[in-house]
């Protein structure tokens, strides 16, 4: 009976000894740790690097610590005391439910706990992150720009045992002129600009640039002509947004062309606006158009009016005007919402030729169904170059189209690479990751 007991005791002791040895065999610390400012960044990151210790086999990773300043240490100690006091107070208060002096008891317990916590000393570091065993680099971000911060690195094993600290020194993050993570942006920008400038130069040199016929813009002459023959006005709506909206700007640009034709044909043009600034801009544009047409005497600013900012108040006015005046031509160019169908249906009911243009995709179906011609998105923005026919604008338009074509090719290439990567091919996956994370992320 004694022999098994003794054997059990010996085995147990051996296991305890082995366990104790394993517990205390911390991995060696990393070597040549250093902290320095991360180059080509916006001044919010510090890079910490190190080397793996030689003959280290049990390292599971590295933990990076930031050294706290005195103020930070005090703040941390205070936070620790408050947290300990809170816990103790709450425990004492809840365990002495029947005592009449439970508050005093809880307060005494909290005070004691805070003193105990304070007695443990002030922490001088805080962990900021970990890195894998094969990663010998860590970027601490975000950090306060311009302040020197010290770091230390410890390796740890699979049981969480940490090595002694390897001091990495301190470094201050500084703002660089160029952001390295967006390095691809630079060649892309140069490339696209070169394409556009090249196209402009080609156009200026007399190289013919063919622009697809846009029926809606070609029909402007016809629409104004109809109004002239019928002796009725042309109604022009430049959207319901203000001049800070790019669609309104495009709408006002096209207004210039319409006004010039109206001036040449001696047709009346009416421009009710939903924003006062749009009215001012529209008056300028129309006046210029009348001057260009040599009909400055026919320009009447009173036909360009501000109605109201209220969406439906504006619509009510325009719809009423349509029904009463029965314009022969209604042109809608700008940003529209719910009023798109309300206006164009009214125009259809009075048998007006209607031309609409908007980049608001949700309103396009309504315009297409109710109008004679509709400019879709890009057509709308290309209108000024199309109408002017001026080489610089046409070259720019062509250059932008070439750039879009390149973007489309990149998208298609990305889809193909990603698909191949998904099928398990490593090269395409690496290429698609690089494309997505490095080139396009910029």
């Amino acid at each position: 009976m004694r022999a098994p007991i003794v054997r059990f005791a010996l085995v147990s002791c051996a296991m305890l000894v082995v366990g104790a040895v394993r517990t205390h065999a911390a991995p060696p610390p990393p070597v040549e740790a250093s902290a320095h400012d991360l180059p080509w960044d916006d001044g919010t990151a510090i890079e910490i690097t190190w080397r793996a210790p030689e003959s280290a086999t049990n390292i599971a990773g590295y933990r990076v610590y930031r050294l706290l300043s005195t103020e930070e240490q005090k703040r941390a100690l205070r936070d620790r005391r408050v947290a300990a006091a809170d816990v103790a107070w709450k425990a004492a208060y809840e365990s002495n439910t029947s005592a009449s002096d439970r508050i005093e008891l809880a307060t005494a317990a909290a005070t004691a706990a805070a003193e105990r916590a304070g007695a443990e000393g002030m922490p001088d570091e805080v962990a900021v992150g970990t890195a894998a065993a094969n990663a010998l680099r860590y970027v601490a971000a975000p950090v306060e720009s311009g302040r020197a911060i010290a770091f230390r690195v410890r390796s740890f094993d699979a049981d969480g045992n940490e090595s002694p600290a390897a001091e990495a020194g301190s470094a201050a993050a500084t703002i660089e002129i160029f952001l390295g993570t967006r390095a691809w942006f630079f060649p892309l920008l140069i490339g696209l600009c070169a394409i556009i400038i090249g196209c402009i130069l080609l156009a200026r040199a007399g190289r013919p640039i063919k622009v697809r016929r846009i029926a809606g813009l070609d029909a402007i002459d016809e629409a104004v002509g109809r109004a002239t023959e019928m002796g009725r006005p042309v109604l022009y709506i430049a959207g319901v947004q203000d001049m800070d909206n790019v669609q309104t700007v495009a709408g006002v640009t096209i207004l210039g062309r319409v006004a010039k034709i109206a001036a040449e044909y001696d047709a009346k043009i009416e421009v009710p606006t939903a924003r006062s600034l749009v009215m001012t801009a529209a008056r300028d544009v129309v006046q210029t158009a009348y001057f260009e047409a040599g009909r400055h005497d026919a320009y009447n600013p009173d036909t360009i009016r501000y109605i109201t900012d209220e969406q439906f108040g504006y619509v009510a006015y325009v719809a009423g005007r349509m029904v009463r005046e029965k314009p022969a031509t209604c042109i809608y160019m700008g940003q529209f919402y719910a009023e798109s169908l309300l206006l164009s249906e009214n125009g259809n009911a009075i048998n007006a030729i209607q031309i609409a243009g908007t980049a608001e995709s949700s309103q396009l179906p309504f315009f297409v169904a109710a109008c004679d011609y509709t400019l879709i998105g890009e057509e709308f923005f290309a209108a000024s170059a199309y109408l002017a026919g001026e080489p610089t604008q046409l070259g720019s338009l062509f250059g932008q189209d070439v750039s879009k074509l390149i973007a489309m090719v990149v998208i298609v290439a990305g889809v193909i690479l990603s698909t191949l990567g998904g099928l398990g091919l490593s090269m395409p996956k690496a290429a698609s990751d690089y494309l997505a994370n490095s080139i396009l992320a910029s």
Partner: protein
Amino acid sequence: MMDGSSPTHTDPASKPAIDPDRIRWILATDCGSTTTKAILIEKVGNEYRQTQRGEAPTTVEEPFADVTVGVVNALTEIGELAGRRFIDDAGNIIRPATETEGCDIYISTSSAGGGLQMMVAGVVAQMTAASAKRAALGAGAIVMDTIAANDKRKPHEQIQRIRELRPDMVLISGGTDGGNTHQVIQIAELIAPAKPRPRFGGEYHLPIIFAGNRDAAPRIREIFRDGFDLAVVDNLRPVLEQENLGPARDKIHDVFLEHVMAHAPGYDKLISWADAPIMPTPGAVGDILQRIAERDRINAVGVDIGGATTDVFSVFGGVFNRTVSANLGMSYSISNVCAEATMPKVLRWVHLDMDERELRNRVKNKMIRPTTIPQTLEALVFEQAVSREALRLAYLQHKEFATTLKGVQQQRTVGDLFAQGSASHSIVDNMKLDLLVASGGVLSHAPRMEQTAAMLIDAFEPEGFTTLAKDSIFMMPHLGVLASVHPRAAMEVFERDCLILLGTCIAAKGHGRPGKPCFAYRFTPSVGAALAGEMHVGDLKLIRLTEGQTAEAEIVPDRHFDVGAGPGKPVRRTIRGGTVGIILDARGRPLELPEDRADCRARMTRWVADLELYP
């Protein structure tokens, strides 16, 4: 019978009605600027045939200053040829016909003295002014200028232009009914003070036809009260969706007869002789083409290429259009053709090696000696090359003019989002063209019929199945007027004597690489063995099928080519033969010739051989 020495102004409409069944002898003249052409139509058996023709110089100008002198001379020549007397001793046409002399009907057209010259005006150039131009051209006029509110000219420039012109009449349009009055009146106020001077006589009151907004009519009457002869007719565009050319065209014919012709030397007598109103020559050509297209339910194009101008007529879907290309012709305007088309474009049709400098000299010589005709093969080839370009440019202008109405509201659905076509487009569609009729010296008098066919095909680029024909002796004007008094006689003569059928052109629309398959064909003629084969891109082939013969044709195009039923879809049709036969054209449409001169010459040489164009 009228006494020629004391002519009376008899309205042809007031003459006794003609019984078509009793008509046996018909005389018709066309008084051109230089030549008066007369034809005799006889009832032979139970059908009408054109039997004789005669010509004499036109005598509108001094020393005769009487158009009827030329008419009498031409009719006398016909009488001698027919062995029948048509002119009595007093110089008048003998009517009614007896067994030995005289005729039952006499009709005439006229383009002497430059034809009917008009100025038209409208509010918007592409709308009411275009309608006014269509009405005038359709009535057979030459439109000297079009005044419009948006013609980019200042009012003083417009007035200057109106004063410079000497039109026979003015057609004013503008505004829909109930529409614009302000600018219509403005146009009238430009014309009235400008006082355009008519061509004939100081006492002549210039005829003005107003076919615009009816609300403006009272004010228009006030403006043209003194010194003008105003006629108000229905609006050409009562609404923008509708074009109403009939009343204006009829009024133009009336005014032409009552005012213009009545003031031209000898025309009062000619009017009194004629059994139908004298029509402007092009108007009569248009009329007969319309009648044929309407009767056979076909689309037709007619072309008359002259020395100074080229007229193109078309009827598509029952809509008639006519254009006059004023600077495209084969003698007076040949230099302009070469300038407009450019010499390299002309030379692409020439298979011989020619020196460009020498050709330029040839062009200028033709200009200063317009009546000369080619004496060498080289000269003939070059002239026919120029004619191809003149015809091509004239047809291009015609296509641009013959459009659907502008300013018309469209109805669309969401499905049209990416397919919004322009509302206004040319109604001339070569794939739907059934009959192409040629007239004019260079086409009618080409030494070989194959040359006429080749010129038509190269210039007009017909697609699918197209019957080619030529007006044998420019008889269409006579028949146009005759159709108004005796339609049966006009149609019978048109079918049997007027048109010389050249054959049928079968051309595939599309493009492909030279040498690749274009279409396969199989012909089963009414007489003889069937014939089948395959055409490759760039090929041209002539298959003889004589006049009067027909053949069942089956064409199976490659998927890139269309012969009428859509790309790659086969077509079966009965086709007619002619003096040339069937021409299979696999050169593709639109026709593109190599830029390189050597390549182009090589290809043309092959095509010339394929069609047996030149010796």
